[in-house]
């Protein structure tokens, strides 16, 4: 079993260590190795020492007892501002969720219901998990950009949305462990070995295992299986009744290099966590981008622009290829105060491609 295997592994490590010692004796004698093992105690001497700065950059996980939390703090109302700007497009203004994206608040007392609502408040056992996950992996498409204070503030706002703290609570590395999540005791360790395996490790029945059998449910009734490409094509073909008019697809504009558009589609991935373009595009964290070229700056109804954007629009400025190029190169340099939390497109060639792509799929 696994314990025995682990013991065997420990034994193997000792054997490896012995081999290492042997290698080093050979190395010391100049016996055929091209280089001596650089790390004295290691088995093979491969790899190099990790520097403290490198460990600090990557080792940012937070443990349930709060170990790993950096110094910092954030309050509920600062958190609300950041949340509405950076998180609400997917999680809703009040952390209530949007579409298929996760609901972060509420759901208390639903875990034994037919449709449980598993939120940070109702389900997550440790607060450390939300700080850790938000700081490392959020916002979706712009991970790793939140400061420690931002993260404390966002977590404070989520706690407030869950009615777990008052609106004057300041979450910090010092107050963090004062907050206990309601479902901390709602988990048990894997007990399948005792509850299930003991029952299901039995000689199975081979004949006369039940008296009769009836179908109780058909998947075809639910009808949620995606169609295959062939089925979809066949249906589409059946719907088309009018013959295509020959010669209808005449080129009316100078064709844009398809390779540039394709490169732009790939480069647009940098933008797509926040912006949609093309058919059915809608506002997300950023405004939708259909008809962007020639559009008045800051002009999409219902989108909460920064004042620098609305002011530019009111002054009569429109998005030109030149203006976009400058903005995408250095967003905050060109539009100081923009809410777009994006460092800018690093490769200048990508900018032309992105603009070509936006025009090709998002012209109105």
């Amino acid at each position, binding site marked *: 079993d696994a314990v025995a295997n682990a013991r065997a592994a420990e034994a193997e490590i000792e054997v490896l260590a012995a081999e290492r010692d042997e290698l080093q004796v050979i190395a010391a004698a100049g016996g055929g190795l091209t280089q001596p093992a650089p790390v004295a105690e290691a088995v093979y001497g491969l790899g190099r020492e990790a520097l403290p700065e490198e460990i600090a950059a990557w080792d940012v996980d937070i443990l349930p007892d709060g170990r790993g939390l950096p110094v910092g703090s954030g309050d509920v109302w600062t958190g609300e501002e950041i949340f509405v700007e950076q998180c609400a497009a997917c999680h809703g203004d009040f952390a209530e969720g949007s579409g298929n994206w996760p609901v972060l608040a509420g759901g208390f007392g639903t875990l034994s219901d037919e449709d449980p609502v598993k939120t940070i408040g109702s389900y997550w056992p440790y607060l450390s998990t939300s700080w850790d996950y938000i700081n490392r992996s959020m916002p979706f498409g712009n991970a790793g950009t939140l400061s420690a204070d931002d993260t404390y503030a966002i977590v404070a706002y989520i706690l407030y949305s869950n009615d777990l703290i008052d609106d004057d609570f300041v979450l910090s590395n010092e107050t963090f462990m004062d907050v206990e999540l309601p479902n901390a005791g709602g988990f*048990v360790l894997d007990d399948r070995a005792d509850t299930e395996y003991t029952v299901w490790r039995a000689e199975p029945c081979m004949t006369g295992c039940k008296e009769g059998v009836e*179908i109780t449910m058909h998947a075809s009734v639910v009808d949620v299986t995606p169609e295959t490409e062939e089925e979809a094509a066949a249906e589409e073909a059946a719907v088309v009744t009018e013959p295509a008019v020959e010669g209808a697809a005449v080129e009316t504009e100078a064709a844009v290099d398809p390779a540039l558009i394709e490169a732009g589609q790939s480069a647009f991935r940098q933008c797509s966590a926040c912006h949609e373009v093309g058919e059915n595009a809608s506002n997300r964290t950023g405004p939708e981008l259909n008809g962007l070229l020639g559009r008045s700056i800051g002009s999409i109804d219902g989108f909460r622009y920064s004042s620098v954007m609305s002011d530019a629009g009111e002054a009569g400025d429109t998005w030109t290829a030149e203006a976009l190029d400058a903005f995408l190169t250095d967003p905050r340099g060109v539009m100081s105060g923009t809410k777009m939390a994006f460092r800018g497109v690093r490769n200048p060639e990508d900018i032309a491609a992105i603009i070509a792509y936006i025009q090709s799929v998002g012209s109105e």
Partner: protein
Amino acid sequence: APDPAITELQDWASYLGVGVDETPYGLPIKFETDVVRRSVPWLTASPISSINFTPIHALEGTITPQGCAFERHHSGAIELSKDDYRLMINGLVDRPLVFTYADLERLPRENHVYFCECAANTGMEWAGAQLNGAQFTHGMIHNMEYTGVPLRTLLAEAGLDAAGDFADKWVYVEGADASSNGRSIPMEKALDDVLVAFKANGEALRMEHGYPVRLVVPGWEGNMWIKWIRRIEVTDAAVESREETSKYTDLHEDGVARKWTWVMDAKSIITSPSPQMPITHGTGPLVVSGLAWSGHGKITRVDVSIDGGITWETARLGKQGDTKALTRFYYDMDWDGREMLMQARAMDDTGYVQPTKDQLREMRGENSVYHNNCIQTWFVNEEGVAENVEVS
């Protein structure tokens, strides 16, 4: 009448075919273009953080080609080159180390075939028969031959004297992508059979499977097989990351959830006939083909029923089961054209017998999401058309 495919001179028997180098890296012939991964769009909010399904209904043998092996990303598949790749080992080790990709290729390596199954495989079927196709009900699985360095070799290189007693120690493993997906693995497993792998089925990993380096955690849920692995930290506690608290915990009917349910229990599925693979040849000899696997060890036996579980017969294993790898089974029968309720039931070398859906529900309820290893039923009608059903 004589068959014109034989009596008439065919184009391919007269004209020339394509030369070498037409496709320097080959693709399947055009007649096989339907053997591809598919997704269920309503399942997730965005294709960037989503999953698709291996076309297991159309594959044979046990090895999954990389090009159609299911994908699961939390923040999209990334392009990380071997030159830019770094692997850090830190925490309770004697020497925190950084390895390059080239370093990994200089350590003694091993080859092993293992299945990788998402804990949510068959998860949409808890509340009832829902998706029509083995690809959709059971396709969050693949099975490859991995080449890599045992994790214990890397841990020994960093030195574990500082860790002291291994009994309460863990390794926390983390990916380099934007989700930085991370999981805690007990030291006992880390020193047992976990591999730091850089090849699959003889070639480099695909981007969608973690190129250039991923973790292989045999028999345990796929979420722990960290892709683009960048860091291994020895800790004295589980990190309790988002993927081991909010997700990948199994909520039971009483509102209490099981956690640390790492092992994938024994499971099997008839891949053909199945909803995407109807019987098209009429009555007579019929090959029933399927897959079985267990995260505990080897598949020792698979039974097949064609009457909805009243009577069972033991199927033939394609070859003897390998530990924590897919095993192919066959049930060769003479179909008389009658309706069938087809089921398969796997057993592994711990004596575990795959349970029915009702047995699982009785134990856990319907909101577990993960670890649904129930016996699946296909209803095959007189025309040979198959459907996903539940039976009494």
